[in-house]
């Protein structure tokens, strides 16, 4: 990539979502995502400009490439990617996955573990059933888990997701 194109890319980096940045369709699978990351590394890795005389270009490349890594980090992880997709398609069109998002996702995951022994056990059982394809029974089990933890928002959310998908 030539210098002008790179500077132009750096200038509009905050307008691109992760899919655009990596050149991916929204439905890309994990193989596509990894290949896209490799493709970007071949043209945008700061090592390619290590001995370049322009400090301005080097700092621009540094910013662009760190965003590439960030995009890869988020899209390759199903949970992060789901969370990101919700923000991206939501009313605010959030282009980046931030530290706050990470915190919230982690809290959800902790909650997802369940706060009561019965809730936790039933939730794990429900997840297992769901992954094995027995969706009806999974939903039934998750409903039971939810009766033990009526305030667990994550159980409710997961339940809605599954019911919608069924």
């Amino acid at each position, binding site marked *: 990539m030539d210098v002008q194109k790179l500077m132009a890319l750096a200038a509009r980096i905050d307008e691109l979502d992760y899919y655009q940045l990596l050149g991916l369709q929204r439905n890309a699978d994990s193989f596509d995502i*990894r*290949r896209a*990351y*490799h493709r970007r*590394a*071949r043209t945008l*890795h*700061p*090592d*390619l*400009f*290590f*001995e*370049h*005389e322009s400090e301005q270009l080097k700092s621009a490349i*540094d910013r662009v*490439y*760190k965003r590439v*890594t*960030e995009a*890869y*980090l988020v899209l390759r992880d199903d949970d992060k990617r789901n969370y990101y997709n919700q923000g991206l398609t939501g009313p605010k069109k959030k282009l980046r996955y*931030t*530290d706050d998002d*990470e915190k919230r996702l*982690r809290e959800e995951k902790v909650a997802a573990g369940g706060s009561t022994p019965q809730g936790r056990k039933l939730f794990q059982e429900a997840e297992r059933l769901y992954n094995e394809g027995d969706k009806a029974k999974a939903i039934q089990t998750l409903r039971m888990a939810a009766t033990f933890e009526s305030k667990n928002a994550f159980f409710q959310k997961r339940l809605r997701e599954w019911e919608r998908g069924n």
Partner: protein
Amino acid sequence: MGKHAIGIDLGTTNSCVGVVANGVPTVVPNRWGDNLHASVVHFPGGDRVIVGNEAKRHVILDPDRTVWSIKRILGRKSFSHEVKKAQAFCAYQIVETENHAIRLAIDSQIFSPEEISAFILREMRNLASVYVQEDIVDAVVTVPAYFNDNQRQATLDSGRIAGLNVLRMINEPTAAALAYGYGRELRQRVAIYDLGGGTFDLSVMEIDGDIFEVLGTAGDSYLGGDDFDLRLTEYLVDRFMRDTRIDLRPHRQSLQKLREACEEAKKLLSVHPEVLVSIPDIYVERGQAVSLEYMVNQQEFNSLVTELVQRTFKVCDEALGAARLHPSDLDGVILVGGPTRLPIVREAVAYYFGQAPNVSLNPDEVVALGAAIHAHSLMQSGATRSGNIGAAHLLDVTPLSLQIATVGGYTEMLIERNTPIPIERSRIFTTVRDGQERVNIRVYQGESNREEENVLLGYFDFEGFRIGYRGEARIEVTFSIDASGLVHVTARDLETGLRQRMTVALSSALSEEEVLRLSARGSEMELVNG
């Protein structure tokens, strides 16, 4: 042909230096033809220093003035387990200075661990400079993948003291993978099993032509070939005590002799079913000399070290888990580090991974070769590429989670381990009390949510914002990890709108003046041969 740049494998027991000369990556020998140089520094007196295999002889003859295995305590604090262990074993004094840093007292001189490492790096630099007949300053230096920021910073400072321009620090297993796959257009998933003198790393990598991506890494920085020697030494000390009622433990010189003999025996046991460990007159009292003489066979040795070998597979489980792969998903296993020559290691690795490891590479030299290739490739960037060598991209990860202290001794995760680098993440900090003048941020690395169970990288106060009610000041702090795995922190005051930026060096980094002073002092000492 432009300037040369070198790759240095700065090892716990041995170091090695490589260079790409006329388009071919090669390991640089010393004038006796050795490719491996003991990481030993000897101070014979005056302003002279001896480094390498010549210095190694003095470990026994002159233990007070001979430093070995400095890497084990480089970048560590005085209260760490490794420093305590070294204090018990070394003949020279290891003393504490401010901030729990450590210094070595040799005769009347005081050295930091960074200065000792710098002597080794300077020797490597000299060897390569003679080899290509050019004063070399640019280098890539390798570190164990599991090194934390303090250890990486100390390695970087060692390089600066040695007068090197450290282009990059790369992880040893990654360097090995580069040497293995460079220019071969491979499409493979491999595990790099790197058992060095003092550290163990396992990296799971995907090689996609010119891309070398680390999918997961884990390590144990308290486990290496040295520990194998130690097990055998302790075993023979106990046996000697049983047979003669003489305890060798308080006698450092005898112990040192035995340790060295055990290291030799370990190497011989890779090819011979049994070896004789013999030290004449190991103990002399009131004119009476007692010798030590024991036959040790492979089976005996194996039973002493099985537990150590098994520990490596816990690390393998962890790295594969992070990469979400099974041992059977791998196309190959590459062995790195001298101790991987041991049959017990090879057999256990073959069993764990369900395939025979790749033994086509020299496990002692492959890291330096990879570092040399990367150094060369960095120097060529931005210029026109020379014929034989094209770009290769190392996509590495951070081995440890980056955390910050919250309240009550707890920490909170900021950047998780195995996150690809370079990366950055910002967090907004605010005041918690009315009239608060400064915000204190403490940065840690580790996997625990308790402060004391993680390694403190540094702490800093952010001040100069407008003082007001609590929550009014908003400070955006950006934590980034660069391609060398070094952590940087910058802060920006969002409240005042002043784009006041400050870069915070974590506490372990030496200042420019300090480096210059130490570098000048190091240069005054003459590196001599034998």
